[in-house]
């Protein structure tokens, strides 16, 4: 199974990189962009075949290491 974890700064936390990218897109005349958030994606290949087990395991990985929950949110996507 493949796990895709998307990590981004929490909604209330200023995303300076997102702001810089937004500004650059504005400079390039992409006028339709209302907001930009820059995050990171971690892709893992798991030996587990059970979705419930895998989700529990990846959630623990996010809480312990992959995300800093003081400033970041994470979303987990599992693909069989």
């Amino acid at each position: 199974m493949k796990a895709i974890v998307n990590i981004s700064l929490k909604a209330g936390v200023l995303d300076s990189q997102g702001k810089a990218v937004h500004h650059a897109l504005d400079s390039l005349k992409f006028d339709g962009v209302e907001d930009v958030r820059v995050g990171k994606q971690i892709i893992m290949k798991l030996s587990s075949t059970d979705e419930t087990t895998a989700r529990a395991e990846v959630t623990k990985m996010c809480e312990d290491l992959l995300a800093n929950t003081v400033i970041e949110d994470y979303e987990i996507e599992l693909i069989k």
Partner: protein
Amino acid sequence: MKVTIIQFPGTNCEYDTEYAFKRLGCETQIIWHKEESVPAGTDLLVVAGGFSYGDYLRSGAIAKFSPIMNAAKTFASNGGKILGICNGFQVLTEAGLLPGALKRNDNLHFISKHHHLKIENTDNTFLSKCEKDSVVNIPIAHHDGNYYIDQDGLADLKKNNQILLTYCDKDGSEINPNGSVASIAGITNIQRNVFGLMPHPERAMESLLGSADGVKMLEGFLEL
């Protein structure tokens, strides 16, 4: 007074830190992060600056799982004094020994220069030799020094006098170089035995090199 300095792969301020404490007359020892215990007789444990694990994932995120950090947590819970400088501050927040987190600087630049800091609280070991509201001039050198804590957390820091240092100009007026909440440059935990700051007092030990203001900061630990 025995100072133990932790070295991770990527740490680069351990020798400056050793120099600083030796200059103050302390016995010093640098230990590798794989050590599973804090050496007996350690009065102060320092998590030195640098780029532990190349800052991969997040600054300090991987270092917090090194064996020595478990020992550091036990050391702190028994009242042992810990000082985290720059990357050391990041490691201590990641490890949960200090509240908050360090984000990328708001202007996205690595900032390396001398910066004035205001001494906000002196009722703690670290800054006991400094005068409250006085200004010191200390180098900063970081990419991820933007201190973040939510509003409730900030209220707690203020209520408990946990804010140690804030960024300011030479006259003590607030200036914010990196976007830190409330211009915070350094804090302590509620028990006042764990200290973290982004600026480098160990690089301000000689007037010839721009400032010796680090001396009166680190001297606070001498009575341990």
